[in-house]
Each structure stands twice: as C-alpha cells, then as structure tokens.
C-alpha cells in the first residue's frame, strides 16, 4: 500500500527553520544530562513553576469545565478551519489590514522580508513568537541585511548569547543569573560595566537598552496567541510590556501566525484567557493582553499585515489521531511537569517545540522520519495529558507516531525481527513456557545481568537484573494442581 496519495498535504521543508535537530534525542540528551548546572537550573525552575501553577489552578472550581470547553472549541476550529480562515481574512481586510498566505517557512520568510524591505528600514523589533522561530525568520532577515531585535527579556538573553531557546515560555530557563550577567556584559551595547547579577539590576539594564530600541524602530514583527474570525481581531498575551510597545509604537506591524490559532468568536477568548496564564506562568491573569483589529486611523501602526502560516499544519490536520496536537495554546504546562524535559532540557529535542508537545508536534510538522527519535523521548507517564489545559492526549499521539515510524520501515530491522519473534512466541504458550525456561537456564546475562549485550547494556549500566526465580508462576500453578489432585 502506498503511504502517500495525490493531494496529501506537504510537511515543513528541510533546510529552513528550526524543527529538526542535528542529532537524535538519546544522543543530545546525554550531552545535556552531563551538565550539572543545567540540571540544577531546570530542576529549580520547573519545580517553582509547577507549584505556582498548581496553586492558582486549585482556586478555580470550574477548571475541569474550562478544560473541556477549551478542548471542544479547538476541536470545532479544526473541523472547519478553512472556512474560519477565510472569514478571518475577510474581517482583517475590511478593517484595513492585509492578509498573506504562506504555504511554508520559505514563503513566509520571503513575504516578511519583502514587507520590511518595502518600508525602507533595516531593523525590526520582535515580540516573542514561536511561529517566527519555527520558520527561522531572524536568519532570513539577517541574510537580507535587516537586524531583528528580540524584546522579550528571555529571548533577548538567548539572542545576545548566540544561543537557542530551550523552553517555549521561558526560553532562557537553562541560564542562571550569573550566566545572564556575563552575556549582558559581553554583548549588550552600552551596558554598565559594573553590572551585578541582582535580578532587578539585570532587568533594568535590559529595559534601558530596549527602550532606546523601541523608540527608534519603525517596524515590528509579532506572532499571535489568538485570532478572532468573527471580528478580525488579533491578540497577544505577555508579561513584560515589551509586546505592548512593539504592537503600538511602530508604523508597520507584521504578524506571523500558525493557521491553527484562529478562534470562531470573541466569546471564546473568555475560556482561553483563563486557561492560558494559569497553565503557563501560574498567574491568574497575564499582565498585558493586547488586541488589535486592522488599522485604527491616527492610532498605532498604520500598516498592518497578517501572514497565515501552514508549514506542515495541513498534514497534521489530515491525521485523525495526531490533529489534536494543533489544539496547543503554547502554555508549556506539559514541559513543566515532564520528568524527561526536567532532566534533559529543551535543546535535546532539536526543535523550537521541546517537551511532550514538541515530541508530538515536531515529527508531525516535518514528517515522522525527520524526527523519528522524538516520539520515543517519553516514558508515557501521562503527566503531560493531565496538565494540558486543552486536554491533548499526548501519550496516545506518541504511541500513534511510534507505530507510524515502524510502518515507515519497509525492510526488517533487528528490533522488528525481535518484536515479531517475541509476539510469535507469546502467541504459542508451549513455546512461551520453553522460552521462559531457556531464559532462566542461560547465563547470557552473567551475574545479575551486568554483562548484557547491546542494546540491552543500556539497562545493565545502572541496574541489576533480578535473580531468576526457581520456578515460573505457571510451573508453580501446575505443580500445585497436580499435588492437589493426588
């Protein structure tokens, strides 16, 4: 049977953007696990956010109903996405905005670059945005001679440190304050050489640098948390006020948004503006919620653009099990509760979308074979499913993608041969009993399994095997029955 058919939506193209890592997860994880500073930073940060979020969620008696509503609204959006997007385009256009459709990262980068060039300016200020990181917009702008300046504090730390974000909400979660001080001293133009690592001092240094940049930059690029099809309104939620500056001060505002972010009606915001801050930063309300509908003459940006990005999303939508990954509102609750993420950090996932949601979203956007190790980067403990404010069943999607990966291999692998042999044995109880005895009799494992051959040596490196029992349960049961009938 052919795996593709005519009209199958395409996945995100290679060679552009940040959805694929350089090495498979287990290898990248090993590097991260060997860094004790990273382990401490992550352990401290995720534990703090978990506790804070847990407290404010516990305040809401209708949290289960809110989650159910969030999930239902998103399922409705996915069921009629094309119509909602056309409605959104119509409303934004009526309000004086310009809507652009980008099939992939390459098209989106070209659209934004051309729009900036047309303004005649060579610098843009940026609101923190996952979509623009996904498509590698900063690199595309730099290649065209345009300087992008990240204005979210953590994104600024990452940008100045020539680093990669490791968390979708707290991108510099892997850095502590003394590391941040060193980055500022080394990279921030006009920084005070006596800078200390006191957090308010670090924040003040960033504020001074950013204020100057806000006031002399005429073009901004943002993402969007939500877009309302009914009104043509776009919304950004944030904590620092940098977003409000970017969305109001410049002459030109360009927003790049994944197509799945659209919501049918204004009323739907009521649900998500409760779910998002409590799940993400552990706040009852985010400090800044900015909304704009096209152009308001004489107030705010007078040139407003919306770039609707596909980049593999239609392929995700086509998968009945996997499509719920598009429900994600980028709160990062799944990362904060994930025992794997807490130990490896975000860089090990290779994509801008790390953690449990990244492990199901990245392989779907790129095609599972381009991120084949990610669906296995989970113990299937289920903590992410419980934490997700829109109830994405991440463990089930992980298992589904593992099956897709196995199905993609047309030739047998050592693993597939072993699995087939094990299944055959287990479907033949006599063979199974014989295998149980053979396993007991063999000294293959050596004493307590310390000398297991690859790939099982991953087990024996840190764990002993149990002593084989004198008798299997089924032998004991048979013997007991024989003795009872004597």
């Amino acid at each position, binding site marked *: 049977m052919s795996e593709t058919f005519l009209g199958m939506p395409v996945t995100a193209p290679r060679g552009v953007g940040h959805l694929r890592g350089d090495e498979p997860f287990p290898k990248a994880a090993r590097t991260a696990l060997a860094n004790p500073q990273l382990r401490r930073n992550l352990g401290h940060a995720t534990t703090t956010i978990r506790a804070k979020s847990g407290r404010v969620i516990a305040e809401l008696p209708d949290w289960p109903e809110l989650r159910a509503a969030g999930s239902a609204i998103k399922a409705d959006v996915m069921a009629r996405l094309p119509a909602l997007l056309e409605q959104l385009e119509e409303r934004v256009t009526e309000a004086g905005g310009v809507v652009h459709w980008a099939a992939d990262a390459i098209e989106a980068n070209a659209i934004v670059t051309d729009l900036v060039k047309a303004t005649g300016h060579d610098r843009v200020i940026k609101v923190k945005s996952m979509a623009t990181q996904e498509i590698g917009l900063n690199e595309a702008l730099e290649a065209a001679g345009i300087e992008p300046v990240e204005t979210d504090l953590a994104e600024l730390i990452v940008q100045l440190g020539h680093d990669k974000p490791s968390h979708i909400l707290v991108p510099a979660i892997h850095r502590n304050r003394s590391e941040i001080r060193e980055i500022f001293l080394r990279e921030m133009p006009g920084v005070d050489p006596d800078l200390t690592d006191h957090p308010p001092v670090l924040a003040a240094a960033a504020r001074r640098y950013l204020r100057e940049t806000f006031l002399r930059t005429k073009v901004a690029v943002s993402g969007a948390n939500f877009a309302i099809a009914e009104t043509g309104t776009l919304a950004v939620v944030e904590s620092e006020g940098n977003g409000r500056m970017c969305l109001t001060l410049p002459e030109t505002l360009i927003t790049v948004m994944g197509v799945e972010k659209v919501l049918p009606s204004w009323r739907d915001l009521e649900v998500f503006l409760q779910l998002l801050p409590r799940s993400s930063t552990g706040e009852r309300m985010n400090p800044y919620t900015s909304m704009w509908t096209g152009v308001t003459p004489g107030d705010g940006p007078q040139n407003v653009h919306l770039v609707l990005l596909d980049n593999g999303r239609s392929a995700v939508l086509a998968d009945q099990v996997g499509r719920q990954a598009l429900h994600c509102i980028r709160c990062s609750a799944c990362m904060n509760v994930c025992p794997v993420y807490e130990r490896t950090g975000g860089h090990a996932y290779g994509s801008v979308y790390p953690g449990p949601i990244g492990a199901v979203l990245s392989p779907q956007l790129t095609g599972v074979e381009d991120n084949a190790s990610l669906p296995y980067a989970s113990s299937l403990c289920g903590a992410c499913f419980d934490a997700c404010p829109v109830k994405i069943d991440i463990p089930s999607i992980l298992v589904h993608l593992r099956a*897709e990966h*196995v199905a993609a291999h047309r030739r047998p692998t050592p693993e597939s041969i072993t699995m087939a042999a094990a299944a055959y044995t287990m479907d033949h109880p006599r063979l199974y009993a014989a295998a149980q005895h053979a396993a007991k009799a063999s000294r293959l494992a050596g004493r307590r399994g310390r000398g297991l051959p690859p790939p099982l040596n991953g087990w024996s490196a840190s764990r002993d095997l149990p002593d084989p029992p004198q008798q299997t349960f089924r032998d004991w049961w048979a013997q007991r029955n024989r003795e009872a009938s004597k």
Partner: protein
Amino acid sequence: MRIALFATCLADTLFPAAAKATVALLERLGHEVVFPPEQTCCGQMHINTGYQRDALPLVRRHVRTFQPYDVVVAPSGSCVGSVRHQHAMVARAAQDEGLAARAEDVASRTYELSELLIDVLGVEDVGAYYPHRVTYHPTCHSLRVLRVGDKPVRLLRHVRGLDLVELPAAEQCCGFGGTFAVKNADTSTAMLADKMRHVLDTGADVCTAGDSSCLMHIGGGLSRLRTGVRTVHLAEILASTEATQ
C-alpha cells in the same frame, strides 16, 4: 467469587512471588482463583514500541482467554491499563470491530488488584501483618491511566505492624517506561536516580508498588548501589500474615 488471574508475562516469568501472593490473598479472603494457562502477554510492550500489528494476535489471545470469566484480576496497573485503553484501539486499527467490542467487554471486567479489593470485593482491611517501614510509589499507569487514587494506600494503612512513610515527589515517574529504559537509558537512569534518592530519604526498608516492572527498575538500581532497601510488590505485603512472616 470465582476470579481469573491474569498473572502478566513479567510476573509469571521473573516475579512469580507477586502472582503467588495474589492467589494466596484472594484465597484467604474466601475466593476461588483460576489461572487460564492459555494466557501469555497483553502486548503492551509491542504496542508502546510501535508494533501494533504484531500485538494483534496477543490481543486476540488475551480476549479469547479471559472472555469466559466474570472477573479478571492482574497484579499490575500497567497491564490492566493496556487491556482497558489499548486493546480495543489495536483491534480497530486492524479494522476488526468484533474483536474491539469483545476487548471492551473483557476490559470492563478486568481489575488491578487494589481496584478489585476495594471496588469489587469491598474490603480495605485484608487482615495482613507486615512489620516493616514501607514507602509506596504510585506507578504512572495505576495513577494516571487507571486512576486508582489512594486505594493502595488505604489497603496499606490497614496492614498491622506496617509503618507507612510518605514518598517525596511520589507522583513523578521512576523512569522505567518499558523500552524507554533501553532506548533512552541515560534519561531513564537520571529519573531513577532522583526516585532512589527520595526512597532513601524516607528511611524505609521496603519500597512497594503495584507494578513488577517499575519495581524491577527501582529495585535494580537500589541493588546496584547496595542500599539494602528492598522492592516488594503490594500483593506480597497484603498476602503476608503472622504465619508467613
């Protein structure tokens, strides 16, 4: 009550004490236990590693084996989780709607041990005696797939002589995760290290849980470090009496 035991392939092969204890406990409570010998494995390892098609005959075998029984029990949250949440899915993926319906029927009568004791048999005090300092690790699948909640702890609280100490960060995964422990051995070991640290912090001599698989992982780590802390299946504690101690 006549109860069919699904021993699970892991307990049958490597941890028969957990299955034997399940038999001893239920017989002591006055029930008849049967072990249908056609049973082997629920297929979870295959399903969770991506080999759903290989798991199909195992699902079919499991459903055929246990369909005749009114009540099925397994000393494993994880295997019952697979029976309840994966068997019908595997059947549907193979477009076998008849099998899916039968799998759902069997699943509706299949219980993890603490569920059987509390929800079906209505007993919290099973008359056990176990004079040890014990900490309980709630395994992920019993906690988040089956939602057994505090049922195992309620059973443990009634065990005479048992000093139950709370495990810090108990709800965090131990890092086993089936083939995850091999495919991502380094991450699995890092998770295990934290779990072991918490177990040792309690000062318990015994760490218990409802799954032999997680206990094999935690126990293997504790043994390698020569901590002296033992892992013992919940069924073995509940089966213990003055006579067996």
